[in-house]
């Protein structure tokens, strides 16, 4: 009489991420095992992965993962790409049939560089920055081509996602055949937005990828703020705004990563009022200027870029997040069990505080086109709440050990 119906259980999404600071590649099986340990957190309506360092042979090119409902949509995308980009390589993303996954969309990948001639002005309004060019291109395709979406657009990285349980999606995209120095994974329990392939996590722009557990109650405010800066939300899921906010705050506005995290999950005014200068002025300015960027509501997010993995909680910690380290490996997940499933004996396990980012960057010059957003010393706030990045503490300890 016992029938297990896991997809009827309500529990919320699950996250997992892993990074090796020396850039050592981690097999796909590892992340799959970790996310599948949290199977009860999803309901089979969405799962996804982001992998970094998977296209070393085209490391200089932006890799566009395109999801298309129809051949026609795909053709339209290809026409735009032919116009706007130099294309060095294109292929169907290898998949295998998986029981339970029926009529998936088409997945292709294109390795491109921006093409600045021709109707350059129309699309990039004269900006010389390749990243800005790509952002505009992605926005254009996602908005203008019905039935086609670019699900990732960074260099040497890619997102794989769809409707299914994490093990099914991994099987479908043959993720066991990839190795990456950063992996993030998501197990979805869609709530406010429909379960469709484009709505699965991770959400990406350029090499930013984000997986998220929770709900962003401030979505309306965040979306309208981003629209002022040329971002268009097309994927019907609140998480999309986080990817664009990171791109805006960190890459375009040049905010140090911990201040960007502060903008997303700021301290309370009560705490700010107790701070010493110059922290108080900085925090006040961040809150006053980036109020519309604040993510309000319960969340735990993992975001990654070509060079680092960051975990962040909302400012009253309404969603779980656990971090752990073992040698050069750092793990972050919704549940400690997800970490222990792939690392039974970590050196350290800790629960980050609300609003306290855990920032783990690769060691310098580990990979091509490596990005680093840590500027100098970590931000210190002289309030009772300690926001010192734990990762930095670990590093000093390591040095002492060494």
């Amino acid at each position, binding site marked *: 009489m016992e029938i297990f119906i896991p997809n009827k259980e309500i529990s919320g999404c699950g996250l997992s991420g892993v990074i090796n600071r020396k850039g050592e590649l981690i097999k796909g099986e590892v992340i799959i095992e970790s996310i599948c340990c949290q199977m009860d957190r999803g309901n089979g309506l969405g799962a996804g992965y982001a992998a970094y360092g998977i296209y070393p042979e085209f490391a200089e090119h932006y890799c566009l993962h395109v999801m298309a409902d129809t051949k026609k949509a795909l053709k339209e995308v290809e026409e735009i790409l032919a116009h706007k980009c130099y294309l060095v390589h294109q292929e169907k993303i290898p998949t295998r049939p998986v029981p339970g996954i029926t009529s998936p969309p088409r997945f292709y990948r294109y390795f491109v560089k921006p093409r600045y001639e021709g109707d350059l002005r129309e699309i990039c309004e004269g900006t010389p920055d390749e990243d800005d060019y790509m952002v505009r291109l992605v926005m254009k395709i996602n908005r203008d081509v019905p039935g086609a979406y670019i699900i990732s657009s960074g260099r040497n990285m890619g997102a794989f996602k769809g409707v299914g349980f994490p093990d099914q999606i991994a099987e479908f995209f043959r993720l066991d055949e990839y190795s990456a120095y950063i992996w993030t994974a998501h197990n979805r329990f869609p709530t406010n937005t429909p379960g469709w392939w484009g709505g699965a996590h991770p959400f990406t722009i350029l090499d930013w990828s984000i997986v998220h557990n929770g709900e962003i109650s401030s979505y309306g405010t965040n979306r309208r703020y981003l629209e002022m800066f040329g971002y268009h939300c097309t994927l019907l899921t609140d998480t999309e705004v986080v990817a664009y906010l990171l791109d805006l705050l960190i890459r375009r506005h040049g905010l140090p990563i911990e201040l960007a995290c502060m903008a997303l999950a700021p301290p*309370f005014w*009560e705490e700010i009022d107790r701070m010493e200068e110059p922290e108080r002025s900085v925090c006040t300015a961040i809150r006053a200027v980036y109020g519309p960027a604040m993510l309000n509501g319960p969340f735990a997010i993992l975001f990654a870029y070509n060079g680092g993995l960051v975990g962040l909680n909302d400012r*009253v910690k309404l969603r779980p997040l*656990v971090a752990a380290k073992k040698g050069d490996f750092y793990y972050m997940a919704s549940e*400690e069990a*997800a970490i*222990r499933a792939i690392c039974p004996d970590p050196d350290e396990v800790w629960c980050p505080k609300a609003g306290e980012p855990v920032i783990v960057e690769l060691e310098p010059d580990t990979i091509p086109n490596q990005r680093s957003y840590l500027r100098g010393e970590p931000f210190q706030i002289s309030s*009772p709440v300690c926001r010192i990045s734990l990762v930095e503490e670990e590093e000093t300890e390591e040095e002492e050990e060494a």
Partner: protein
Amino acid sequence: MVFEIDAKDLHYRELNQQIRKAIAEGAKHLVIKHVNGHRYLAAGVSAEVDIDVYGVPGLDLGAFMRGPRIRVHGNTQDGAGNTMDEGKIIVEGMAGDVVGYAMRGGKIFIASDVGYRVGIHMKSYMDKIPVLVIGGKAGDFLGEYMAGGIIVLLGLNSRYPERPLAGMFLGTGMHGGVIYVRGHLPETQISPVLKIEEIDDKDKATLENILIEYAKDLNFDLEEIWKEKFFKIKPKTHRPYGKLYAY
């Protein structure tokens, strides 16, 4: 007789079935190995039984339970002792968020730190007084809405020596029960609706009872615990929102 269960390849539902079955068959001591993220362990179990858990139990360990004594040899995840009625949970490591939510009886002893929103809305009625002891430090919102029972915060065995004993918003909306803290709390943490006092002889006797048991269970040095002064935090009123409404 010790009854052993290997949880390695079991879904939590199967694991709980085995636990209930063993208890029904008269087992008085269960040992569960290779627990990793299994939810609702011993949830709703109404029996006098000892359960040793090896590994990391998942959400809602011992929720609604009435009677079992659970010892976790390691850390536990969020929601331990959710709405627990009677019995005991001993955690040899740290615990996650929302420990002892709405707990109405029994004891929870945590050796190290706990997360956010611990001891929220604990309540007592007649002779049922829940007790929660934290060996380490606590995150924000400790004892929020607390309506009864006892929380003891020792701050001894913490991963975060630099942090204050508890986070922000301690006891917001607290309208019953008592929080004993070992040592000083920054003033900013005490909401104006709470009062903090030195403990009296009656408090001392209460604490003595709890701490002897705690020290024994978790191998703490009782003398060391008493070396620092204890303070008690109580609400000024049982009706903090009496003047809230206009009608």
